């Protein structure tokens, strides 16, 4: 995160038990801990003293960034009242921190695990189901001509209660046709030298393609691949080697090469694949064939024994 030294200094003094109060609305919050650090600010878990309610507070020195993100998220919520895939918003205010003026907004604290943690504990089938949920959310945004941009595991939470996929950090959201402001290199198609950084639906879908690949390939392999001279070919190589089913390869390649016209189309393809068969690694295929041959063998042996052929 880029910020001036004074702000960095002030944020360092934020500690557990510290009380911060908004200048305009006079709401007081007790800081519990830092939850994360985004491109434009730091997020804390805080307790609103007047209600004893826990919420997340995003603090930054850029008034523009905080206000823009709050306004955008508020607009999205207004339009999609039924489905809250982003955090609910509470309030927007300033903090007088002596040397500098900081800006914050508070939102719902979503308890859950990040996408990366979730996939290590789930079957490939379950992980693919998370991806389909994410695609539904993206379609919702795309229908409003908005591109999420910064799709990465850290921004996708699986809510503990209902196993629902929620999206956080709307700081990168831009209308179609704008420059992508916020991205993470391994989910960014320009860094793979596979397209421009002008926002379109395919930019988001590319990132989902990489996420999907990550269910089967470690993040480190992708980071290494991207540093190669012709990263695109290395990426295709990984897809061919590491994805077991032809259908899955096809979906992944379509996603990263911009062949999907909408998130819905990718969603339909994955749903179709999920309805057809068990998604597994090669290894499990071997297990299946091994047990199949063993079964036939034992049936023949038993028949041989009983009927004395």
């Amino acid at each position, binding site marked *: 995160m*880029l910020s001036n030294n004074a702000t960095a200094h002030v944020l360092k003094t934020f500690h557990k038990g510290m009380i911060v109060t908004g200048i*305009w609305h006079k709401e007081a919050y007790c800081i519990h801990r830092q939850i994360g650090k985004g491109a434009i600010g730091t997020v804390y878990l805080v307790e609103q003293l007047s209600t004893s309610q826990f919420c997340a507070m995003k603090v930054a020195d*850029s*008034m*523009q960034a905080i*206000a*823009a993100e*709050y*306004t955008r998220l508020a607009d999205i919520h207004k339009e999609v009242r039924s489905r809250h895939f982003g955090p609910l918003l509470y309030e*927007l*205010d*300033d903090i007088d921190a002596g040397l500098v*003026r900081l*800006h914050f907004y508070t939102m719902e604290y979503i308890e859950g695990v990040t996408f990366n943690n979730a996939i290590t504990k789930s079957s490939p089938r379950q992980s693919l189901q998370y991806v389909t949920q994410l695609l539904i959310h993206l379609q919702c945004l795309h229908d409003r001509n908005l591109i999420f941009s910064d799709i990465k595991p850290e921004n996708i939470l699986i809510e503990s209660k209902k196993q629902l996929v929620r999206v956080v950090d709307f700081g990168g959201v831009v209308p179609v*046709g*704008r*420059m*992508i*402001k916020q991205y993470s*290199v391994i989910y960014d198609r*320009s*860094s793979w*030298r596979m397209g*421009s*950084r*002008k*926002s379109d639906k395919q930019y988001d879908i590319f990132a989902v393609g990489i996420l999907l690949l990550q269910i089967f390939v470690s993040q480190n392999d992708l980071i290494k691949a991207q540093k190669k001279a012709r990263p695109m070919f290395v990426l295709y190589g990984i897809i061919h080697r590491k994805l077991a089913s032809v259908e899955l390869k096809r979906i992944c390649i379509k996603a990263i090469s911009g062949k999907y016209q909408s998130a819905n189309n990718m969603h339909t393809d994955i749903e179709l694949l999920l309805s057809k068969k068990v998604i597994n690694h090669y290894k499990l295929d071997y297990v299946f064939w091994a047990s199949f041959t063993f079964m036939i063998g034992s049936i023949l042996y038993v028949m041989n024994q009983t009927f004395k052929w």
Partner: protein
Amino acid sequence: MAELKQVLLITDGCSNVGQDPVEAAKELAKHNITVNVIGIIDHGMIGSKGIAEVQSIARAGKGLCEIVKSHDLTYTVQAVTQQALNLTIEHVVNRQLTEMLGDKRGIQALAPENRGKFVELMDDLSEQTPLKIVLLIDVSASMRSKMKNVEDAIYNLSMSLQARTGNSEIAVIAFPGSIQEHTKMLSNFTNEPSLVIELCSMLQTSGATPTGPALLAVQQLLNDDNEYLRINTSINRERELVDYVVK
């Protein structure tokens, strides 16, 4: 709004030849050219004196200063450029708002709920205002191990800027240019994406770091690019003549 002009200086050491770079940066700021500086800190080459100098250059040039390791360069070059752009726009909008409101706090005088509209305007302006940026790259010998990162950073910046709605042009200048010249133009203003510049062959081992003169050369380029071209060609002509005479 008229076009915005920025210089991004990428260096890993102290200046040691020619005019004071801080004075040069002040001169640029007077002509509405923002000077941003990225100092590379890799093997402690830059030192506390170097850090102090790059910070003063950025302050004098009304720009931003970041001290980073070379592997963070790609991200930082793009982020500093974008942030400097946002700051300039914020400054301009704020000045107008201050006049309208008659309150010197500008947009901060508005309650947070009422800022949305202005923030949207700033966003639009950051995206649409034409931008001219000169990358001023230190190619002294100590930069050798960082050249690959600088090349990647240039490519990456061009990819981002060419996605903007407003016209964005990038020029790349290396310093020192050679033993005789302070600077060498590697790429004149272009709005092509995926800019690939080969830097390794540009490395200079003379030990000179003419940061000040390089900044002044940039000012010339930004104020009138055609004029710079003419001067440059005339120098080349002169050398051809010298060569001819010697032979």
